[in-house]
């Protein structure tokens, strides 16, 4: 199809789809008028049953915990896939950026910049850990905290140059963290089976509602997700950064 023909065809098709969506949306109850009995019930009972204050985390990790298990593997699959797609191929080399002015030498990062980066990054680490561990109490949890932790790593790099990044990047550690986190979720699920009950059953004490350590396995699952996401997002950013900074084709684009 020419671009013009495609646009005209799309206009007709999109109009028809708009009507379709409109019919469906018009059948919904009016905005804000009702909440399902299922949700009302869970809002009612999950504090009692799971000793959590954040009902969303009880649903994510307990009532519908198996969804989150597969969600973790969506992330693991995407990160693994990106590593595969962006891996250095046979006609590519890893080469650190050349110094354009060799007589000048790279200035060492000033102490003030360093200090600021370290300070910011520790702040992020604390926020990340707090977000991961308080998932049962307040909004947040393993995923959000994990992304914050991964970003902490990169703030450190902001205070330095890519040579240092390349040298100190803990690749194996990040990969292991990604794998251990994902495996940990499966393992906690299997603990239920080993205890003679079903997969992903709560196998530890529920704790006192309102304490950080409450909600049974939910904080543990948050921890595994935090590990996985922190490792995964750090790998993701490093793969893209590598492409920009060090990977180049020997022959140029074909």
């Amino acid at each position, binding site marked *: 199809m020419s671009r013009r023909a495609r646009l005209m065809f799309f206009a007709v098709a999109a109009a028809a789809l708009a009507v379709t969506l409109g019919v469906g949306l018009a059948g919904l109850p009016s905005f804000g008028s009702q909440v399902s009995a299922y949700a009302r019930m869970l809002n009612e009972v999950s504090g009692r049953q799971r000793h959590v204050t954040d009902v969303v*985390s009880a649903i994510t990790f307990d009532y519908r915990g198996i969804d989150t298990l597969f969600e973790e593997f969506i992330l693991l699959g995407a990160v693994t896939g990106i590593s595969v797609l962006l891996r250095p191929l046979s006609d590519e080399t890893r080469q650190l950026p050349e110094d354009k002015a060799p007589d000048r030498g790279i200035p060492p990062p000033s102490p003030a910049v360093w200090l600021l980066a370290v300070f910011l990054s520790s702040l992020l680490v604390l926020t990340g850990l707090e977000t991961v561990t308080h998932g049962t109490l307040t909004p*947040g949890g393993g995923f959000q905290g994990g992304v914050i932790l991964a*970003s902490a790593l990169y703030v450190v790099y902001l205070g330095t140059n890519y040579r240092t990044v390349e040298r100190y990047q803990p690749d194996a550690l990040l990969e292991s963290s990604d794998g251990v986190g994902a495996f940990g979720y499966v393992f906690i699920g299997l603990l239920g089976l080993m205890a003679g009950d079903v997969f992903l059953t709560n196998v530890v004490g529920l704790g006192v509602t309102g304490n950080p350590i409450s909600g049974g396995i939910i904080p543990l699952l948050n921890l595994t997700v935090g590990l996985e996401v922190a490792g995964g997002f750090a790998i*993701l*950013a490093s793969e*893209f950064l590598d492409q920009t900074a060090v990977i180049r084709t020997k022959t140029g684009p074909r």
Partner: protein
Amino acid sequence: MSEVIIAVALIWVAASGTAVVLTRDPLRQAFVAGFFGLGLAFLYLSMQAGDVALSQIVVGAIALPLIVLLAMAKVRKDRE
């Protein structure tokens, strides 16, 4: 009151979402997309979905623009 906030958020999201699509230059689009991501987070927060809003901030306003910028940097380097 909450209805007004939600309505404002909805209009913000619809307008900035349209702007994201109509901004054809990827570099500028990354910034508009960050603004759109913030709008979504604000909308979710106004609909009492704190968990989702927090996820949206870390994904839509931090991770996604970062990836777009890195991709753009790579593409520019290839063109040199």
